[in-house]
């Protein structure tokens, strides 16, 4: 099994189902366009870079969006 730490939670994927890119990961998690930015192992990734950003076993990923706030 391969695994990713996503928003503080560990998720496991059989090797053949491991998403190859950040875009593929969002699709797999059914996360729509509300995600405004991501962080992969501490590196900021903008939405336009999601498709070209490789996802690898063991990475820590933060998916972030805007919410109401004061």
């Amino acid at each position, binding site marked *: 099994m391969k695994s990713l730490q*996503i*928003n*503080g*939670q560990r998720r496991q994927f059989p090797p053949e189902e491991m998403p190859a890119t950040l875009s593929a990961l969002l699709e797999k*998690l*059914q*996360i*729509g366009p*509300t*995600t*405004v*930015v991501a*962080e992969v192992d501490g590196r*900021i*990734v*903008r*939405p336009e870079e999601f498709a070209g950003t490789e996802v690898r076993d063991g990475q820590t990923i*933060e*998916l*972030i*969006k*805007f*919410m*109401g*706030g*004061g």
Partner: protein
Amino acid sequence: MDKLVIAGRQFDSRLLVGTGKFASPQVMAQALAACGAEIVTVALRRVDIGNPQDDTLREVDREKYLLLPNTSGARTAEEAIRLSRLARAATNINWVKLEVTPDPYYLLPDPVETLKAAETLVKEGFVVLPYINADPILAKRLADVGTATVMPLGSPIGSNQGLKTRAALEIIIEQSSVPVVVDAGLGLPSHAAEAMEIGADAVLVNTAIATASDPCEMAVAFKLAVEAGRRAYLAGPRAPAERAQASSPLTGFLRD
């Protein structure tokens, strides 16, 4: 009304509005439109993986409003800087409302961490609007490192207590070289008017509008109060006097 200028950008509205706590995105959108706000604050949070489609901000027209991301939730300068960088990457806007609030009960801002974060963020090209306690020396230190405003609190966030810090706010307003935005604790339009009457450049309101029975009507009430307070300030109010000062002539009475 005269324009508010922050970091060289002009605004007609002196009422900044937070987008938290609204019952629905539609109510929020109506309230924002009703009060004419041009700057609206937003928070950055993790996507809820279990409910990924939830999007409370979908009704906010990003062409119409300047989104001002806050760093709420940050407890240290380091966390606030990280959130600011993420916000900039997300919006391509380099404005940030800097909040560092390690205390969970009163959500009071940490002055040391706030100043530290502000210094770094200004160097990185951010337009920094720091949320602070009403501390005139800290306000000056922040302006000295290049923040675009200072945002002293009237009372703790969401407390509706009004201007508990009035005396210190007056000193900040008197001394400040950058716009003073009174943020937090304004529970009634009269609180906002009071802040504007003593010379604040703007106010930021969230809870009082969002949690009112009729947020839209309360948004309008705040808009009018902010305008009234600003106009009163510009009109030059007179100081209170110890004794009565007759406004009718003291001669020509009928009794003599």
